[in-house]
């Protein structure tokens, strides 16, 4: 509970340059990503292709045009939106639980989504026939994530009020049950299904399409931006529900709203990209180092940093072993894990 207070901004720029620099960095990362990939496309060709819809004629091969417009651009944009959404959801969850070690996974979203996606992958082929496509797996994952969160909330709701401590325990129980269900499915899956499930659970934005980007902007970015209005209320709630109520915060409404946004944002992100680990846990810490614990700054900074980090991680994922690629969830966890341990050691030294 005291975690927030003990973390002070390590870097002290004037506020405005810091925001400008981080936004600019994300922009540069996005452009760098758009210009880099397994198929080499020169900078001038990339620029020409990007300007083509504005009426310019680009001198580029058909392969270059396809790679840039159908594959690379939607992928980079999806990575940015999903990264931002997951990180913001992480910051919201940590605010909700008043615990910097909380992760959106605690609400059961990822576990429920994984179970439902695996169900679609294993039973889908036989039972659903042509419906067992990527879209069906996405839909199943979203519904599974939502169902798991509703279950956690139902367990934790007493007299119409969510009890946050019970929510934590309920989340652990639902996670464990979903994990067991997943294990059961793994025992009946064949080789190909096992591979599909494994890779799905490691996360990837390689399946990005323009419709997916559209869904992500509508169902991730929009709720995420709406959630920014609870920043003040979350700050007040850090002091405890009673104090928050005294300054006029409807804590029940804010808690419900936050849970709903986290469930939708993480559910949609997971259904589009599988399980992308660790962003929701690590990025809010990174943001807190830069701008301090106040949610008014923490939430937007998490959004910006998350967008940059997942874009960068995906760039690594698709370039480092090209023409093969690594699951992006692997990269975020590989990079995020050591960072988090470092953070813990630093804090231990201070205590």
């Amino acid at each position, binding site marked *: 509970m005291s975690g927030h207070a003990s973390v002070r901004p390590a870097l002290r720029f004037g506020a405005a340059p810091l925001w400008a620099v981080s936004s600019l960095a994300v922009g540069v990362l996005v452009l760098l990503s758009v210009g880099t990939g397994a198929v080499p496309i020169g900078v001038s060709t990339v620029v020409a292709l990007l300007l083509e819809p504005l009426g310019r004629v680009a001198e580029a091969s058909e392969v270059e045009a396809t790679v840039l417009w159908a594959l690379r651009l939607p992928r980079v944009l999806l990575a940015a939106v999903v990264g931002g959404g997951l990180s913001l959801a992480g910051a919201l969850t940590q605010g909700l639980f008043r615990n910097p070690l909380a992760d959106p996974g605690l609400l059961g979203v990822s576990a429920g989504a994984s179970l439902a996606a695996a169900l679609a992958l294993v039973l889908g082929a036989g039972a659903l026939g042509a419906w067992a496509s990527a879209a069906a797996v996405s839909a199943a994952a979203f519904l599974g994530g939502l169902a798991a969160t509703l279950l956690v909330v139902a367990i934790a709701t007493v007299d119409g009020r969510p009890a946050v401590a019970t929510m934590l325990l309920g989340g652990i129980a639902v996670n464990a049950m979903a994990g067991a269900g997943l294990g059961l499915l793994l025992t009946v899956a064949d080789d190909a299904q096992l591979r599909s499930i494994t890779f799905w659970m490691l996360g990837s934005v*390689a399946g990005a399409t323009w419709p997916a980007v559209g869904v992500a902007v509508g169902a991730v970015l929009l709720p995420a931006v709406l959630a920014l209005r609870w920043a003040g209320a979350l700050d007040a709630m850090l002091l405890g529900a009673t104090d928050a109520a005294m300054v006029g915060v409807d804590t029940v409404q804010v808690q419900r709203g936050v849970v709903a946004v986290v469930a939708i944002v993480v559910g949609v992100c997971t259904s589009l990209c599988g399980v992308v680990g660790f962003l929701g846990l690590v990025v809010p810490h990174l943001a807190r180092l830069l701008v301090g614990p106040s949610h008014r700054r923490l939430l937007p900074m998490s959004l910006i940093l998350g967008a940059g980090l997942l874009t960068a991680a995906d760039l690594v994922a698709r370039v480092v072993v090209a023409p093969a690629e690594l699951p992006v969830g692997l990269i975020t966890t590989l990079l995020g894990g050591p960072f988090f341990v470092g953070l813990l050691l630093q804090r231990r030294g201070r205590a």
Partner: protein
Amino acid sequence: MIGLLLGVALAGTVTDHRGTSVTASSPQRVVALGGTLTEIVYALGAQAQLAGVDASSVYPQAATEQPQVGYYRQVGAEGLLSLRPDLIIASEDAGPPEALALVEAAGVPLAVLSSEPSVDAAKGRIAAVATLLDREAKGEALVSAMSAALEGLAPAQPRPRVVFLFGRGGGSLLVAGSDTAAAAMIELAGGVSAVSEYSGYRPLTPEALVAADPDVVVSTTRVVEGLGGVEALTAIPALAACRAVLQGRIVVLDDLMMLGFGPRTGEGARRLHEALTP
């Protein structure tokens, strides 16, 4: 490599993949661990001697109705023993080794056969199972039928460049690299793998699929089913941009025919060759 040297000494005795001499005398309760081995038993007409199969035994359809011992890489010793087998024929990939060792220690003859994806290994597997099940004549007939089917598969020039899809790996497609059964089959059919920068089945970055620009896309029935059918397959952006897909050159073969290197290896190679040769 030992698998290639399957020495057939006396009737009912083979030297298996481990170099162990395994003897069976007219076994009547055989358990097969591995879809290819089950298919061989059926091809030999010896299915009446089967007491159980593993979950990867999906061809022929009748095999799926045999008593199940679970997935061949993860079988249980007690489950195997409960079928009272008098012979277990297992792929070298079957396991865990502890379970198989327990069953062998309980006195059940265990023949471990190579899973190498080559014609010679396929012939070796057929001969070994035929010997163990007293069906040598039928085994020889299957082997010579395979040789006959494989004769005269002259590759088209230039060799068609082929990509083999093995399902989805997260968002990207799992594509066969070198050292895979798929690559061996493509080679056999006169094609050449368009992706050989890595070995095994790995997620191929979508851009690389477009850049590889294969002449033909090959996959298996179950993989295509899992992806939602051929139509869903061709809607995946990276594939939709491929010349092979635009020209409708997608070949779908039965899983075990394409990847099993069992009795239908010759037939599969012939069919693939026809699809690759315009």
